[in-house]
C-alpha cells in the first residue's frame, strides 16, 4: 500500500515536472498555481506513504533506510516549500520538480530495497545519521538549484533581454540569498550527519574503513562543501564561480549517494 500512495504522489509530482518543462519556454500564472497545488497534494500522499512505510517496517530507522530515495525526495520538497513560503517563488521548481520526480520514480519502481541487517546496530545513531545527512542533501540540492537559476538570471540580465524567457525569476540577490542560506543551513546538518555515521560505523565494525568508497566519497563531498561555504563567506563568490563550486558539490553528493550501490558498508547485507 505504501508503494501505492507513493505512486499517487508520483502522479502529482508529474504535474510539477510538466510545469518545469513548460516554464522553460513560457510563464503562466495558472500553471504555476496548478503545479503548486499538485505539489502540496503530492507531498500529502508522499507523507502517507512514508508513514505507512514506518508501520510496515515496524521501526522508524528501518523504514528510513528502506525508503531512502523517497525520504530524500520528500525532504527536498519540504525545503522547496519553505523557500516558497519565504520568498514566494516557484522558480527553483524548474530543477527541484524533475529531481524529486526522478527520486520518487526510483523509489516507486524499485523492487529490491537495501537490506539492513545487523543485530547490534545502534539504531538511534543511525536514525540521526540518516535524518541529518538527508536534510543536508536537500539543502545542498536547493543551493545547487539556486546557483543554476543565478546563472540563468545573470545571463538574461547581461544579454539585456530581461523580458524574455523566465522573466518571472526572482531577483538576482534573492536567488543568491536562497542559495547562501540553504548552504549555511545544510552544512552543519551534513557535518553532524557524517559524525553520526562514523559513530554507527565504529560501533558496528569496530573501526572505520577509510578505504571504503562510500566513506572516501562522503569525505570528499564534505570537503567540497566546506570549500564552497568558505569561498562564499570570505570572498563572496557568486555567479559563475559559485555555480561551478555548487555543481562540484552536487556531483560529489551524487557520487557519494551512488556509492551506496558498491560500498560494502552501506550495503547492509545480512551477515
Amino acid at each position: 500500500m505504501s508503494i501505492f500512495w507513493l505512486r499517487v504522489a508520483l502522479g502529482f509530482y508529474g504535474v510539477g515536472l510538466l510545469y518545469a518543462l513548460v516554464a522553460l519556454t513560457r510563464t503562466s500564472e495558472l500553471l504555476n498555481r496548478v503545479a503548486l497545488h499538485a505539489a502540496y497534494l503530492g507531498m500529502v500522499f508522499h507523507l502517507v506513504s512514508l508513514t505507512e512505510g514506518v508501520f510496515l517496517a515496524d521501526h522508524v530507522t528501518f523504514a528510513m533506510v528502506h525508503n531512502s530515495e523517497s525520504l530524500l525526495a520528500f525532504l527536498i520538497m519540504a525545503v522547496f516549500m519553505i523557500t516558497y513560503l519565504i520568498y514566494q517563488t516557484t522558480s527553483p521548481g524548474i530543477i527541484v520538480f524533475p529531481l524529486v520526480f526522478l527520486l520518487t520514480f526510483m523509489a516507486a519502481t524499485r523492487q529490491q530495497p537495501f537490506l539492513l541487517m545487523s543485530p547490534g546496530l545502534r539504531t538511534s545513531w543511525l536514525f540521526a545519521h540518516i535524518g541529518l545527512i538527508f536534510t543536508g542533501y536537500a539543502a545542498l540540492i536547493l543551493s545547487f538549484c539556486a546557483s543554476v537559476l543565478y546563472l540563468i538570471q545573470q545571463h538574461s540580465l547581461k544579454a539585456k533581454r530581461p523580458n524574455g524567457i523566465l522573466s518571472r525569476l526572482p531577483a538576482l540577490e534573492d536567488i543568491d540569498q536562497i542559495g547562501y542560506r540553504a548552504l549555511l543551513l545544510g552544512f552543519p546538518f551534513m557535518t553532524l550527519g557524517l559524525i553520526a555515521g562514523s559513530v554507527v560505523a565504529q560501533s558496528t565494525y569496530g573501526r572505520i574503513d577509510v578505504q571504503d568508497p562510500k566513506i572516501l566519497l562522503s569525505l570528499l563531498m564534505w570537503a567540497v562543501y566546506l570549500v564552497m561555504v568558505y569561498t562564499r563567506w570570505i570572498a563572496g563568490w557568486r555567479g559563475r564561480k559559485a555555480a561551478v563550486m555548487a555543481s562540484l558539490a552536487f556531483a560529489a553528493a551524487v557520487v557519494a549517494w551512488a556509492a551506496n550501490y558498491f560500498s560494502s558498508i552501506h550495503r547492509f547485507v545480512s551477515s
Partner: protein
Amino acid sequence: MRFQLIGVNHNTAPVEVRERLAIPESRLPEACKKLTEFPGIDEGMILSTCNRVEILANTKNGSGADLRAFLRNYFQLHDADLDKHLYEYREQDAVRHVFRVASSLDSMVVGEPQILGQVKEAYATARAVGAVRAQLDQLVTRAFAVAKRVRTETAVGSSSVSIASVAVDLAKKIFGNLAGKQVFLVGAGKMSELAARHLMAHGCASIFVANRTYERAVSLAYKFKGQAIHFEDLHKTCDRADIVITSTGAPHAIFRREHGELFLSRRKNRPMFFIDIAVPRDVDPAMNKLDGIFVYDIDDLQQAVASHVADRRKEAERAEAIVTVEVERFQARIQTLDVVPTIVSLQDHLETIRQAEIDRVRGRLGPMTPDQELAVEALTRGIVNKIMHTPISALKSAAREPEATTVIDLVRRLFNLQEKRAAKSGGSGESN
C-alpha cells in the same frame, strides 16, 4: 434588458471637446439622478475622467433611449458637431466596451492601472444615489471581475514604459528589494535626475553626487538630501554604491574594466548596476563582461522600453480574447436571469385563474367531501401544469439564444402579463 452606452474618449475627441463634457466629481451624483429620470432610462452610470466621458444606461424594456438628447440637455449644447466625436454602443457591444474600459484595454496607455479605480468610484457614486440597482450592477461588478482576470492572467499591466521606470525595474531584477540600496549620481542631467528620483521613490536609501564642478554636486546633493563627493574621489568611493547613474560629458569612458574589478573585490562580489545615460558612453562596455556588474546604456534602456511596449501589445491581444469570452458568458447569464420573472408571473397568472375558477364553480357544486376537494385540486393543477409546460420550456431554451427577448415579449403578450412585469421589476429594484 437593453444596455446602451455613449461617450467620447481620447481617440475620438480632442481635449477641448472632452473638457466641455467633463462632469466634476461634486456634480456627479446629481447628474446620475438626472440620467435615471430621463425618459426611457431605468438605470444609469456616468464615468468622467480626463481621457473619457461615458454615459452607461440600462434602458426600459424594448424602447432604448436617446442618450445624445440627454447630453445636449444636460450640457445645454446645441451644435451638431459634437455628434462626430461620440461613439455609441448597444447591448453586447456596450458590455464589451465596459469590460474593455475596466480592463484598461481602451486606455491611452494600455494597461495603466488607474482606470479601474476610476470606474469603481463612478460605480460607487451612481450606486449611492440609487442610479445603479439591478442589471447595471451585475454588468459593472462583472466588469471588475473581468479586469481582475485580465490583470492576473496576462502581463498587460506589468511592464513599464519610460526609461526611468525601466531602470527601476532592472534594479529590482538585480537587487529585489531596493530598500537600503545606495545610489551614485555621476554628472547631472534631467534624465539621470529623474532616474535617481524614481529609485529613491522605490526605497533606495541614500545618494552620492559627483560632478566636475563641486558646487554643482553640492547643490544637487542638497536637492536629494545626499552627499556630495569630489570628482577625484569618484573611484575611491564608488564601490559603496549599488546603483551608479552616469551622465557626464566626458569624451572617454570614466569607468573601465579594471575599475570594475576593483569595485567587485572591495564589495566581495556583491552585484553592481551601472545606468549609463551619457553619449559618448561613460562606462566601458567591457565592464558588462564582469561577473556581477550589469551595465545598461541609453540604447539598451530604450530597447527595453520598446520591447515593453511591444509586449504590452501582444498581451493586450490575449486580454481581448478574455474579454470576448467574458462578454459571451455575461450575455448568457443575464438572459437566463431575464426569463425568470416571466416564468414566475406566468405561473402566478395561471394560478390566479385556477383559483378564481374553482371559487366560481364551488357554489354550484355545493359542499364537497375532503376527497372530492382533493380531486378537484389535483385535476385543475394538473391541467394548468400541462398547459404551462410548453411555454416554460420554450422560455428556458430561448434564454440561451439571441432572440430571447422576442420570445419573452411574445409570451407576455399572449398571456397578457404586461402590467405585472412592470410592478415586478419595480419591486425588485426597491428590494435591492
